[in-house]
């Protein structure tokens, strides 16, 4: 996603000189296309994420649209109060680009995981939060959001190969995207883990279970109207996310169910506990948290009983 995102940003920057790219000394093999093409509009500010957001705040007030790039926890958690007091409270067009939502940084360990970013940002009313499911959706979501008046957070993955079949890059702020229809249960996903959900839905179909699948990439503003409509047709719903249980997609869906008295049962498939120090690949960490496709299939079948 990040490669496609930066290439798309280059396209936008070619006709809008307000676009700048700032990095906190991260983005090797990702930010180069922009850095090489727009040498005067690219700044490696060093390992200083608070200053990264502060600089962007000052730049945005003067009329620029600064994109700031880092790995999810360094882009969001380290400078969180700067994000709140700067672009959010002052409604400035800063774009925070966090790479590596969930366990994408695998063996790098807990310090590099992004497990609470969506939660801590979507509680702030004044920021758009976008978590694309694949690189095509990363591109379209950037194309429709880069010029918004307020701040935007993009939670990106590193995978520039995998696509979610049926998504075709669709994205609309405040809406869900339908991947497949079904009648027995509903699966809702956020982010690159959608590809695991797709495989789970296919496996369920082979076992005679008709599972609908929708993607929520616009986490803030939340697609409440769409969710109410689709949730009303199902008795069982599974949310799937590489994020902690609290604050992310599962929390959003539970809010919609509770506030609208919808008669469906929610099963949240998410990260249960703080990482224990055990390391491994993204696949290993997803499996450890019962988030691989075969585990999602098993959870769905159990809930259907």
């Amino acid at each position, binding site marked *: 996603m990040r490669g496609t995102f930066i290439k798309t940003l280059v396209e936008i920057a070619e006709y809008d000189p307000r676009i700048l790219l700032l990095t906190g000394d991260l983005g090797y093999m990702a930010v180069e296309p922009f850095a090489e093409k727009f040498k005067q509009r690219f700044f490696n500010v060093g390992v*200083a994420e608070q200053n990264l957001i502060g600089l962007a705040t000052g*730049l945005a007030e003067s009329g620029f649209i600064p994109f700031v790039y880092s790995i999810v926890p360094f882009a969001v958690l380290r400078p969180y109060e700067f994000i709140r007091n700067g672009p959010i409270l002052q409604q400035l067009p800063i774009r925070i680009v966090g790479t590596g939502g969930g366990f994408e940084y695998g063996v790098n360990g807990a310090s590099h995981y992004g497990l609470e970013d969506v939660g801590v940002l979507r509680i702030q009313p004044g920021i758009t939060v976008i978590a694309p499911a694949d690189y095509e959706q990363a591109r379209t979501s950037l194309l429709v959001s880069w010029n918004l008046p307020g701040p935007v957070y993009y939670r990106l993955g590193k995978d520039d190969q995998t696509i979610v079949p049926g998504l075709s890059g669709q994205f609309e702020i405040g809406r869900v995207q339908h991947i497949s229809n079904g009648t027995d249960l509903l699966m809702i996903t956020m982010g690159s883990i959608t590809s695991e959900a797709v495989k789970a839905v296919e496996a369920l179909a082979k076992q005679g279970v008709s599972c609908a699948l929708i993607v929520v990439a616009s986490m803030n503003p939340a697609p409440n109207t769409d969710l109410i409509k689709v949730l009303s047709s199902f008795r069982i719903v599974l949310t799937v996310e590489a994020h902690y249980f609290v604050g992310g997609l599962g929390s959003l869906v539970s809010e919609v169910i509770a506030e609208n008295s919808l008669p469906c049962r929610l099963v949240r498939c998410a990260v249960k506990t703080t990482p224990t120090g055990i390391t491994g690949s993204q696949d290993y960490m997803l499996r450890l948290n019962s988030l691989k496709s075969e585990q999602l299939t098993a959870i769905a079948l159990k809930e259907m009983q």
Partner: protein
Amino acid sequence: MNIAKPLTINPFEIRRIIIEQSMRAHVGHIGSALSIADIIAVLYGSVLQIPNPDNPDRDRFILSKGHAALALYAALFLKGWLSEAELNTYCADGSLLGVHPECALKGIDFCSGSLGQGLPIGTGAALAAKLQRSLRRVYVLVSDAECNEGSLWEAVMFAAHHRLSNLVTVVDLNGQQALGYTNQVLDLSPLVQRWQAFGWDVHEVDGHNVEEMKKMITDLDTLSGLPHVLIARTVFGKGVSYMENQIKWHYWPMSEDEYRQAIEEINMA
């Protein structure tokens, strides 16, 4: 700016407003505001080039030590950008004039109140001016205790590396912070050498000598070279004898008797 011209803002007027409004609203942070009255008078009475607060090419000012906002509100009032009726809402329900500045208020460029955020933002604003080839300058007023914040030094390094000569920082060196004296809480010395070591053009100045400050700022080369910092030696609570250098006047509001004495001393100065 024309150095021969007297300041259009009298620092004693700022002090009088600080005392009157603090009493009316029954709030503290009086000593911190009095500490910067002369610096604010120099900036708003001479230095800042602001045709009007909506002009995009105006100089920017960030009061990073936001808790002293009353001194800034006084300047906005004296400039005519804030009405007396608005000033009299200070700390009232529904007012835009809280203890810390909000950018929703005309004349406030950036919200502040969380220490350590003003200089990173000001550095971004200075970079923006350079990128836009504008001659506008950015002034950031920080407290000395704010130099405890690591984020301030992140910005200090960036500004020096990028030679942001259009950035002028003023450190209000009053030697006090919320719970004690800075040399007892977290020693800042040698502050001048620290800024110099980080690559800034450093000047020491009496933060209550308006002519000296005005001349010093006027003489800065803001077109090329290094970013500038004025280490302004000030007296916390300056102008009210019983507040000067007293820790309790960081938070304490005045009683009626204390108010009468304060206003008498301000008027007699």
